[in-house]
């Protein structure tokens, strides 16, 4: 039965996929609780590496940098991207509507190219004007730049899914321009804004390539720290950092999924 064999093959494929996706993560998590300094033999459960982690000033500084970078860049990107997404919607039929495509460049551009370009650009500006020395500032600008398209895309998609007469209904029901923003547009877009906030946050926490090229000596983030530490070998300490990052990203993903489910039951 070819159909039965196809089903068996697809099922096998699914299990293989899950194995290669989650087993490495599981190894990292398990060895982060190892009592000895080895990523090959598990000698017993301990929280030593986590204690060391939190005692390590360099790592704590990197964690702080990651958090500041992710939070600040995401807040800026959500505001700019949200307005952009609305602007694209509002003027989608205009003569310059094709300009929309320019914003999606960072989505398809390889990170390495984008990172190198940003670095070169910041260095040039720094030489000419003496501002934008590599550091958290340049990283925030770079992160906002690649986060904005994702936010704009999500907000725009939500707007396109709305009945266009809703905007007119709000006007018709006596809402002034400001009231339309606060009583109609923002509440209607809240699910899309929340989803894009969480997406932009994970994108920033995740990012290594662009951060690497735009960072300064004082602005090491967790991914950069891990990369530099790993050249001396994978230690259980790194496993512990990785485990915390996995947990954080999972938490954000869960939040976003729960929000999505609530939206589906309460919305149209």
């Amino acid at each position, binding site marked *: 039965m070819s159909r039965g064999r196809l089903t068996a093959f697809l099922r096998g494929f699914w299990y293989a996929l899950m194995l290669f996706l989650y087993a490495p993560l599981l190894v990292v998590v398990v060895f982060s609780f190892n009592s000895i300094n080895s990523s090959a033999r598990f000698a017993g459960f301990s929280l030593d590496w986590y204690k060391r982690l939190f005692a390590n000033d360099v790592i704590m500084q990197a964690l702080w940098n990651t958090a500041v970078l992710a939070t600040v860049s995401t807040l800026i990107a959500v505001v700019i991207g949200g307005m952009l997404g609305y602007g694209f919607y509002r003027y989608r039929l205009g003569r310059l509507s094709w300009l929309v495509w320019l914003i999606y460049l960072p989505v398809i551009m390889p990170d390495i190219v984008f990172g190198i370009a940003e670095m070169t650009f910041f260095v040039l500006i720094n030489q000419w004007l003496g501002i934008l020395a590599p550091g958290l500032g340049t990283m925030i600008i770079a992160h906002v730049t690649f986060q904005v398209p994702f936010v704009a895309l999500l907000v725009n998609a939500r707007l396109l899914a*709305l*009945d266009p*007469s*809703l905007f*007119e*209904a*709000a*006007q*018709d*029901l*006596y*809402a*002034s321009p400001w*009231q339309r923003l606060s*009583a*109609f547009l923002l*509440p*209607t877009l*809240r699910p899309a804004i929340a989803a894009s906030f969480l997406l932009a946050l994970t994108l920033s926490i995740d990012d290594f390539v662009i951060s690497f090229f735009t960072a300064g000596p004082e602005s090491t983030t967790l991914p950069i720290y891990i990369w530099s530490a790993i050249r001396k070998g994978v230690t259980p300490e790194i496993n512990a950092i990785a485990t915390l990052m996995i947990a954080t990203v999972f938490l954000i993903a869960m939040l976003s999924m729960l929000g999505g489910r609530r939206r589906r039951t*309460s*919305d*149209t």
Partner: protein
Amino acid sequence: MSEPAPPMQQRARSASSIGIDQVSRRFAADAVALDDVSLDIQPGEFFTLLGPSGCGKTTLLRLLAGLDQPDSGLIHIGGRSMQGVPPHRRSVNTVFQSYALFPHRNVRENIRFGLEMQRLSAAEISRRIERTAALIGIDKLLERGIDQLSGGQRQRVALARALVNEPDVLLLDEPLSALDAGLRGRLQIELRRLQRQLGMTFVFVTHDQEEAMVMSDRIAVLNHGRLAQIGTPQAIYEKPADEFVARFMGHENLLPIKKSDATGIETPIGRFSGDFAEGAYLLLPPQSLILHRLDQPAAPDCIEAVVDECLYRGGMTEYRLSCSDWPLVATLANQGRPGPAAGDRVRLEVVTRAAAVLQAEGDG
């Protein structure tokens, strides 16, 4: 905070007249949506804008709501010029074709939207919501989400959301077009009754001529952005101004007038004597044609025809006939007697006082 509003029933006095004076609207150089339309709507009138899609009826409604601006011409509501007045400053509310209910708000929150925007007091808001919900019959639905409502219920919520503001004018953009026939008929009667009760000026847009006739005090028929005819349902149906209006109102028996003189007119199916007005067509509405079987005693001035098709329509049967190779439609009430069958020869008695002479399209 604010003065308690009078009950809705007492608001008839504040119903507003609408003046539309030489209004034109072009969307592109060659696309004229409204061409020099002038009409007046009386306070408390149920006024319908009727026409096929693209005739400009929705454009005119949007101009009244302030959602679009005329290129030329003036609009007055309640004697006040609406030039430069944005939608949120007009005492006009709209029931949208898609209902446009806010998805993030439940029924009560949808209805209170307009009241919130006007910053009425909480007590006044809840008083008005209760009253309107009872009036429309949705008091049991107030805490429901929008996605938990049927089509008819959504329609009622959209109506309540507009009426709760007690506007001077209520605009309705094909509000019943998404509903099935039975519900649609019931809501037509309900809307009509409600309008009478409130004494509010209603401007209703539809492409359904039967709906327009059932509901309206007066109808304006629009064709390609121009006003084709304005009048009572009876006047529009029985004395259509031109060929377009006649065909749009469902008339099929339009006979070109070949010759006319002082004693009568000549048509493809024969000569009719009498004093007829000047015009291009003789209109014979179904009620002007009385069908006789050949074996029945003949009335004077009968013409002969052959039955091509019988269409059973419940209360009556519609007969598609050929008369001197010219197609005609006549009806016969189904009263238990067998009627003529396809292929039968019949006699037609023409009641000329129920006939009308009308102009070619655009001449009127």
